[in-house]
């Protein structure tokens, strides 16, 4: 009986000048959305390309449904690369038809077109698509073969907030069908919203893995208070752990009551006080010490 859809054992990829992937182990059960996060250069694109069968590993083993990656995997995997050109002078429908013919089975194209909200642009030349339309088409291409496992490499990069939200809805629909998704993203809110499990990579290794909630609870037991910098001018902040961020001072504390008491004592206005829990952004910075770049 196959318990894991994808098993990655001690995966290593060495280039002449760099160890891009340095001993990764992941077991991926069916039906989850798994997020692979990491700063630029962490090795996540190399990792995902090896998992997709695009790149070869230096050593290690990848098993899909208990077997090494091969024909079956290529037939059952759907892939949306970070950047993919579409053929010029070909319409959206023709693109989907071409990819559909490359697989032994494919979904009903009309249903797929509706689902990915492509109906309005279906006879449009690929060159004339906007960023959001293009991403939806690339997702449709990834879904054309009714895949069991779907790789989404930074699928919402460059999209406006509305388009991102629409895209998230689409991914949630796919998840609801029990498909397994591997997602890479630089947007932590995206990972938090979509992923059942995440792994954070740095220097070719996984430095943390688990559900977003569990990882946050394991790493942090504090909260952050935010106040406008201008209102704290009179206060000696050396008692607190603070950080400046866009005109605000963030105070990190385990005891909110104590901090608020001090602020009241110092006659600091609390009208603009905000308290926020720790996020994946904080976790990421805590673990990698690097700001995410979009």
């Amino acid at each position, binding site marked *: 009986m196959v318990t894991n859809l994808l098993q990655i054992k001690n995966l290593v990829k060495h280039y002449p000048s760099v160890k891009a992937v340095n001993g990764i182990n992941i077991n991926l059960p069916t039906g989850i959305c798994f997020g692979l996060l990491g700063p630029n250069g962490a090795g996540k694109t190399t990792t995902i390309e090896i998992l*997709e*069968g*695009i790149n070869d590993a230096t050593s290690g083993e990848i098993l899909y449904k208990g077997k090494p990656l091969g*024909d079956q995997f*290529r*037939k059952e*995997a759907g*892939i949306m*690369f970070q*950047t*993919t*050109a*579409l*053929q*010029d*002078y*070909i319409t959206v429908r*023709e693109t989907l*038809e*071409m*990819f559909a*013919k*490359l*697989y*032994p089975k494919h979904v009903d194209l009309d249903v797929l077109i509706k689902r990915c909200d492509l109906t309005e642009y279906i006879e449009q030349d690929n060159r004339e698509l906007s960023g959001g339309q293009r991403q939806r088409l690339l997702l449709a*291409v990834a879904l054309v073969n009714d895949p069991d496992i779907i790789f989404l490499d930074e699928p919402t990069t460059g999209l406006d907030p509305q388009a991102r939200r629409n895209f998230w809805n689409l991914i949630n629909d796919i998840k609801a069908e029990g498909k397994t998704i591997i997602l890479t993203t630089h947007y932590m809110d995206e990972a938090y919203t979509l992923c059942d499990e995440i792994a954070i990579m740095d220097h070719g290794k996984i430095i943390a893995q688990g559900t977003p909630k569990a990882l946050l609870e394991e790493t942090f037991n504090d909260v952050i208070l935010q106040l406008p910098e201008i209102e704290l001018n009179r206060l000696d902040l050396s008692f607190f752990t603070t950080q400046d961020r866009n005109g605000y001072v963030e105070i990190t504390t385990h005891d909110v009551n104590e901090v608020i008491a001090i602020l009241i004592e110092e006659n600091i206005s609390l009208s603009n006080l905000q308290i926020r829990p720790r996020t994946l952004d904080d976790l990421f910075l805590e673990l990698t010490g690097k700001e995410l770049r979009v």
Partner: protein
Amino acid sequence: MNNFLMSFKRFLALLSTRNKEFFRDRSSLSWNILMPVLIVAGFSFAFSDDIGKQFKVGVVNKLSATPQSKQFLGLKHIDFYSVAADEEEIKYAVNKVQRHQVDMLLDATKQQYWINTESPKGYLVEKILLGLGRPDSKHLDLKYHGFKKQTVSGKQIRYIDWVIPGILSMNMMFSALFGVGFVIVRYRKNGMLKRLKATPITALEYLSAQVASRIMLIMLVTAFVFYGTHFFVDFVMNGSHINLFLVFALGALSMISLGLIIAARITSEETAGGLLNLFSWPMMFFSGVWFSLEGAAPAMQNIAEIFPLTHVTAAARAIMIDGAELVDISYHLIVLLVQSVVFMFLGAWFFKWD
């Protein structure tokens, strides 16, 4: 569905998509058709006027000419050139008389001459030969002079007739090299090939679809240019159209396969452009497209043998001008076939998706 049918289905899907892309790219399509037409039209215009005002006469045994022959050879404004008294050379020169490239061939010792009955200039130069020193036109007869007349016939071969097979082949070369090589590099650079690699298609299916698509397009465009140009220029076509089709198809295959080698691993369009030029320009100049390599240095002739364009041009020219059959051009066909197989094998061997 069995593997072969599935493979064929994928091949057809890629073929059809590539064809659509080509035909919808109007600027590229127009240029493919327009370029050879413009070249042919330019040459046709340039050579429409008879720029050679002199008569041209080949002379065998020039040094041992009879007095009558010497009198003729002493005339001004006629270009006399020596022909070796060798059976092959004489045959070759007679062939030129047939094609109107030479107005007369004269054996100055035997007082024998060859003339093309369809050549106006041949007719005039014959009158000059027979009328020398004889003001009375009634004495313009062969018996009086002792010259023996041999007649040949044949349509005139103009430079435009000679150059058209080369132009068609050259246009094919550009379309083959740039149309496949450049496109594959562009697809590789922009990630299209990487996306296709993630599907069940194989490199062989992908490459064969590209080759088949380009051959179809090349043959279609070449046929269009051939018949379109023929309508306006009326160039010589003495051979079989089917044989010519086969030569061009084999030539296209060979040159597309060469393009596959060039494009096998490159990811930069600039590098690809440079390399394609590196191959196409020497071929354009040293494959006998514009001028005959007969008088060229042996080293250059040997180098030209490597180029597929040399063999396509020579075979096409032999069919179109001499009416050669496939057996007559079997050497060129074998070379093209071997080159196609070798180039295709190397291209597939070195091919990288990303």
